[in-house]
């Protein structure tokens, strides 16, 4: 394995560099996946039938908490990459743990939100609007849930093997995934919630 020491560890081998490129291509496909969900949401959001509309069920407080928590977690995962490049393993793991904790808080609030929606009569089968709302939010939430487990697995490897070309590469790719989820949330926050409550 040829290691280029002029680059950060996560880029230090050709394989690592290509894995990062490959992940970007995957994220490009993810952009399109979420685009189809947003397109469906914009088409179906008026179809509330006998169920409630967005303006009737959205609550600003949980949405704001989710947004601030996810923005902060995106910041901490960015600091994680920075600490990793300084070779500060302890700090890097600290930021990594902070990100996962914030992700778990986000998920907790989102679960509360889903329970609330079902409680006020907007379940998956109530109307076209409630179906696409829960599908869009749920797809993002499922990504966060997967990210939590994935992140914990990488964290264990960092603890076990230290900062190697392999573990730093995995951590960096995880940071890309996490930032991407934050970007998707920004669009959900703007065009599902704020537009719905405008």
């Amino acid at each position, binding site marked *: 394995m040829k290691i280029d020491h002029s680059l950060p560890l996560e880029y230090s081998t050709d394989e690592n560099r290509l894995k990062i490129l490959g992940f970007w291509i995957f994220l490009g496909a993810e952009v399109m996946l979420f*685009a189809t969900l947003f397109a469906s949401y914009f088409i179906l959001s008026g179809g509330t039938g006998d169920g409630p509309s967005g303006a009737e069920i959205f609550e600003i407080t949980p949405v704001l908490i989710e947004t601030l928590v996810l923005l902060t977690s995106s910041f901490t995962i960015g600091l994680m990459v920075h600490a990793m490049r300084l070779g500060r393993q302890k700090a890097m793991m600290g930021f990594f743990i902070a990100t996962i904790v914030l992700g778990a808080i986000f998920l907790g609030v989102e679960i509360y939100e889903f329970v609330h929606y079902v409680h006020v009569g907007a379940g998956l089968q109530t109307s076209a609007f409630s179906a696409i709302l829960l599908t869009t939010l749920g797809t993002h939430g499922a990504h966060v849930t997967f990210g939590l487990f994935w992140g914990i697995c990488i964290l264990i490897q960092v603890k076990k093997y230290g900062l190697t070309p392999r573990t730093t590469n995995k951590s960096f790719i995880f940071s890309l995934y996490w930032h991407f989820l934050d970007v998707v949330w920004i669009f959900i*926050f703007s065009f599902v919630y*704020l537009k719905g409550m405008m």
Partner: protein
Amino acid sequence: MMKELFPMKQVMGFIFSLVLTAVALMVYFFDMSFAIGMTILLVTAFIQAGLQLVLFMHAGESEDKNAIYITIYYGVLIAIFTILGSLLTMVWTYQFQ
């Protein structure tokens, strides 16, 4: 020791993303027309996304820079075509009748 863990660039980026969120929140707290509200949301959301991409995701730092940007542009282009095309045919149709 602590300071080197919090680079200015990232802290500023974080503060800027909070400011953008606050600006977007104006559409909730103030009465405004749909057009103005949507304009604010579109502008803040796309700046936020760009901020994450360039500042936090280090999109432009490796030798694969071009391939990475082409992938993103392609994904975003398909996303915009999908969303605008769907709106055009299924939501805004009445304008063309």
